[in-house]
């Protein structure tokens, strides 16, 4: 409580944004890893996960401090803010359309079944060390590609606010929590309220993006950092009203929409 009450509001929003974004992406990655582990064996799946996590951590260590030391802060804020705005608007748009029933919801069970069917039918390639190369490659790609979005969010949010360590810890905590939940519930990942989490992340990324772009071009924010939660609230209100209007104007929203197993961009 002491930490929460003394920390700037920007830090809390930062932790929440990174944690939620990481959790959403890691649920998708875990679905793939579980499918690989169950169908092809756990050893190669875990090896693929370990190598992917090491590669992602290396990206954060390599690019995070380099950005902070070699790029002027105003340029960093402008570019990073722009990236966050585009990225956040994409998440928010998709979450609004899904909440309004105009886009099929992400279905982890469908992705799981699809992966299991593909892996069951695949050939069992093994390396000299006894590693199942297919299982290794699928687990590695699943974790690495989903994790890249998290790395971009960690680096951009962490470097602009000079809290790279905090952002990395929030992402790490999300990975641990999702892994523990995944181990407990095994494959009932479809129960995770993914669209609500995606909506929350989109709101925070758009708010951070607006704030940092503003800082980069010398906007004077009333209340300084306190403008971030105000922006989150305002964009949240807009998103909620948009969903309500789309539901009211639509005829039978969501009718005939099959859940999607798409993984790219959630």
């Amino acid at each position, binding site marked *: 409580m002491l930490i929460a009450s003394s920390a700037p509001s920007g830090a809390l929003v930062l932790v929440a944004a990174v944690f939620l974004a990481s959790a959403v992406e890691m649920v998708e990655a875990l679905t793939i890893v579980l499918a690989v582990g169950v169908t092809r064996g756990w050893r190669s799946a875990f090896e693929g996960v370990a190598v992917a996590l090491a590669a992602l951590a290396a990206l954060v260590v390599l690019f995070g401090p380099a950005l902070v030391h070699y790029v002027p802060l105003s340029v960093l804020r402008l570019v990073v803010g722009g990236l966050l705005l585009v990225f956040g608007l994409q998440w928010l748009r998709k979450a609004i359309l899904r909440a309004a029933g105009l886009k099929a919801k992400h279905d982890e069970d469908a992705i799981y079944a699809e992966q299991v069917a593909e892996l069951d039918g695949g050939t069992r390639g093994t390396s000299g060390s006894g590693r199942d190369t297919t299982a290794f490659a699928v687990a590695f790609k699943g974790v690495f590609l989903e994790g890249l979005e998290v790395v*971009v969010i960690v680096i951009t949010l962490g470097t602009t606010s000079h809290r790279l360590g905090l952002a990395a810890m929030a992402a790490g905590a999300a990975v641990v929590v999702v892994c523990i939940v995944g181990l407990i519930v095994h494959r009932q990942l479809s129960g995770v309220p993914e669209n609500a989490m995606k909506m929350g992340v989109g709101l925070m990324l758009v708010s951070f993006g607006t704030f940092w772009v*503003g800082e980069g071009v010398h906007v004077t924010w009333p209340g300084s950092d306190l403008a971030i939660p105000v922006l989150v609230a305002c964009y949240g209100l807009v998103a909620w009203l948009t969903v309500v209007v789309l539901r009211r104007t639509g005829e039978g929203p969501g009718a005939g929409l099959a859940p999607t197993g798409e993984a790219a961009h959630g």
Partner: protein
Amino acid sequence: MAEDPIGSGRPTVIRWTVAFGRFWWDFLIGDTPELFVGTVAVIVAVAVICLQPGLRTAAAFLMPVLVTAVLLASVGRAARRARRDQSQ
């Protein structure tokens, strides 16, 4: 995953560069080019406004409005397309 017609027969460096470019293209533009173009337009507009020091506080109120307009335009476009697809 579709076959990669670009990658076949090219040196590794070129294939990696193309893949890197594709990643960022999909990441930033993908199927919503209007969000990318709209965001760039908002940034340019706010940067121009902030050249006048007296307008920098006003820009704090204008910028979220412009961002909201970009979002609503993109959502409206997608909603129209989704309803048209559903009715067909």
